[in-house]
């Protein structure tokens, strides 16, 4: 599920096997979420990975920027989890995986809003994990290091400078989306049946130094 139908189709075309479906929906739109949740069957797991960046010093933060980034990075996640639980769309033993960020503790100048939203994701995930444990549901977070993605081409980040800075700081080099997806597969599978409320750092060693 995502806003961009073209990218959804691109992802769909790369998936192996059958039975995959895509839903074009905006996580920030209550109407879209209601339609989406109603249309879903009971699900075994969900990975919530929406995120945008707003780089600005604290003194320049605007109401619009705050609203936009909190809606996209945490409020949409909360809304969809709440609706899925309310409509009993999680199977017994279901798994929820949130994607936060190492920026929750490895902060950078100008990124206070992003760090705050991702910190909220970690805290929400832990509280939700406790709340749904009676249903044998598990809730975990992955906080990735730098993974080059389309968030760069949004223009929010100056790509060359950013890549150079981070290339020097990842001992195992840059990750790619499959490195994070593999963590999600683990957390969605029964291999992690005794894992809940955990926050996994997958960052190629970025936060070691």
């Amino acid at each position, binding site marked *: 599920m995502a806003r961009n139908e073209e990218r959804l189709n691109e992802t769909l075309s790369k998936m192996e096997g059958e039975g995959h479906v895509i839903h074009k929906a905006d996580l920030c739109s209550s109407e879209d979420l209601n339609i989406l949740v109603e249309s879903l069957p009971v699900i075994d797991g969900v990975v919530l990975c929406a995120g945008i960046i707003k*780089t*600005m*010093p604290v*003194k*320049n933060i*605007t109401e619009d920027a705050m609203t936009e980034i909190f809606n996209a990075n945490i409020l949409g996640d909360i809304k969809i989890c709440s609706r899925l639980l309310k409509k009993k769309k999680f199977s017994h033993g279901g798994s929820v995986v949130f994607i936060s960020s190492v920026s929750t503790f490895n902060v950078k*100048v*100008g990124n206070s809003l992003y760090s705050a939203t991702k910190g909220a994701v970690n805290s929400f995930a832990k509280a939700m994990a406790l709340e749904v444990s009676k249903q044998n549901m598990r809730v975990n977070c992955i906080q990735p290091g730098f993974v080059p993605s389309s968030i760069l081409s949004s*223009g929010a980040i*100056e790509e*060359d*400078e950013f890549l150079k800075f981070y290339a020097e700081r990842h001992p195992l080099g840059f990750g790619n989306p499959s490195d994070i997806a593999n963590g999600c597969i683990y957390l969605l599978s029964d291999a992690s049946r005794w894992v809940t409320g955990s926050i996994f750092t997958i960052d190629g060693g970025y936060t070691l130094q």
Partner: protein
Amino acid sequence: MTLDEFVKAFAAEFDDTPEETFKADTRYKELDEWGSLIALSIISMVDDEMDKRVTGADLRNCSTIEELFNLVESK
């Protein structure tokens, strides 16, 4: 926004450098207070006040406040 207004808005993003320091021909990267945080502030100011987007490279490529103003205006 006029050039004078831009110079004032540019100066307002600095905390320690006196406002009278700032002129259209001020070479801003030579100011002691200049740094990445100020650069981000300028980028935000241009976005908020002029609804235009400048990059770190733009700030590096310009020397004076007027050059930056002209670049922003051309966008």
